[in-house]
């Protein structure tokens, strides 16, 4: 795999994920001591991933001049928000959110909103909570697209593919915080746009990797829908399909290649928006993902060429 941008890896090295998750646990236990045992038992993934993507806002902030002392509390803020949406997404995707995590979800949201208010400039008391409301509606818009595709197997339009990037919209408020704190408020709009375009591409790739699991959840993502349509499947006969066959069908039908091409276009859009915002960490991350998709397409073409000779 093409390596992540150096700036992301540096922030991750200096603020290891377990310490961020520990900080988030502490805040949750302080707000709801009754739930302390459950908070301790939650896996770290509830609070986010130790991934380059999670560190993107912090790394962009640092590239824009924010000091290291600013980052720990900011990363904890992201972890609290993630905990709420991890629970919500688990319920939406599978309908199986554990009871303890369901309880913690609202506590995490309350703590997250409190942290947003604490960071709001005194001149505009509700600035960040208003932004949270706006971006929550973007998130709902994306979920609306997804839920409508669960009732009927029908092709996705380009507009819908891009709207699915808005599933990550709740994280946009943190991008404004970074832009404001680093005196780059004028770049926030393009930064948000670029991150949403990046997320649209990442969503396609994630869904391409999760064909079997999404099939079991009957979550008809774009790659799954395209694969099932290529197999001439219908909603009434899905029980006859072996989930293990989906990945083979996706590759051999060239659905996988077309999905990766769509993702590449999303990454190109993201790179252009990032360049306009002078957000070069985002621009470099979009470039990494564009190259990763290109490499994977080459592997698929090579494997199909070999398969045709088999």
């Amino acid at each position, binding site marked *: *795999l093409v390596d992540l941008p150096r700036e992301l890896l540096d922030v991750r090295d200096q603020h290891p994920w377990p310490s961020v998750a520990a900080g988030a646990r502490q805040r949750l236990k302080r707000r709801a001591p009754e739930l302390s045992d459950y908070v301790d038992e939650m896996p770290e*993934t509830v609070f986010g*991933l*130790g*991934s*380059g*993507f999670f560190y993107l806002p912090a790394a962009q902030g640092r590239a824009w001049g924010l000091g290291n002392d600013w980052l720990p509390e900011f990363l904890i803020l992201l972890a609290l928000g993630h905990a709420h949406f991890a629970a919500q997404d688990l319920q939406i995707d599978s309908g199986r959110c554990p009871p303890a995590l369901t309880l913690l979800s609202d506590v995490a949201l309350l703590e997250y909103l409190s942290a947003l208010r604490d960071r709001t400039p005194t001149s505009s008391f509700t600035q960040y909570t208003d932004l949270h409301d706006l971006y929550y509606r*973007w998130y*709902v*818009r994306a979920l609306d697209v997804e839920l409508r595709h669960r009732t009927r197997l029908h*092709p*996705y*339009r*380009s*507009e819908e*593919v*891009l*709207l699915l*990037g*808005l599933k990550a919209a709740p994280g946009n408020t943190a991008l404004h915080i970074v832009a404001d704190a680093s005196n780059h408020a004028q770049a926030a709009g393009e930064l*948000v*746009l670029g991150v*949403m*375009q990046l997320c*649209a591409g*990442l969503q396609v*790739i994630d869904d*391409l*990797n*999760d*064909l079997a699991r999404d099939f079991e959840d009957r979550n008809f993502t774009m790659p799954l829908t*395209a694969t099932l*349509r*290529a*197999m001439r499947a219908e909603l009434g006969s899905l029980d006859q399909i072996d989930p293990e066959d989906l*990945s*083979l*069908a*996706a*590759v*051999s*039908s*060239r*659905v*996988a290649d*077309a999905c990766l*091409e*769509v993702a590449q*276009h999303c990454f*190109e*859009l993201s790179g252009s928006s990032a360049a306009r915002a002078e957000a070069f960490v985002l621009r470099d991350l979009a470039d990494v993902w564009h190259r*990763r998709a290109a490499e*994977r397409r080459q*592997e*698929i073409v090579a*494997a*199909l060429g*070999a*398969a045709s000779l*088999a």
Partner: protein
Amino acid sequence: MIRVITPDLTDEATGAAIDAALEKLDAAAPAQEISPPRRRKLRELVSPQANGDQDSW
């Protein structure tokens, strides 16, 4: 239903390019005759492991 206003997420040229890629999906059909070893190789190209572990994102 009331739709929230969302940003223009693409330009005209890229939107057309994405539409063209999506149109390829309408004609897609799985290849029928692939030997078992090749099947295994092709399956590996689309899997949660295909893009590395979570940290590589």
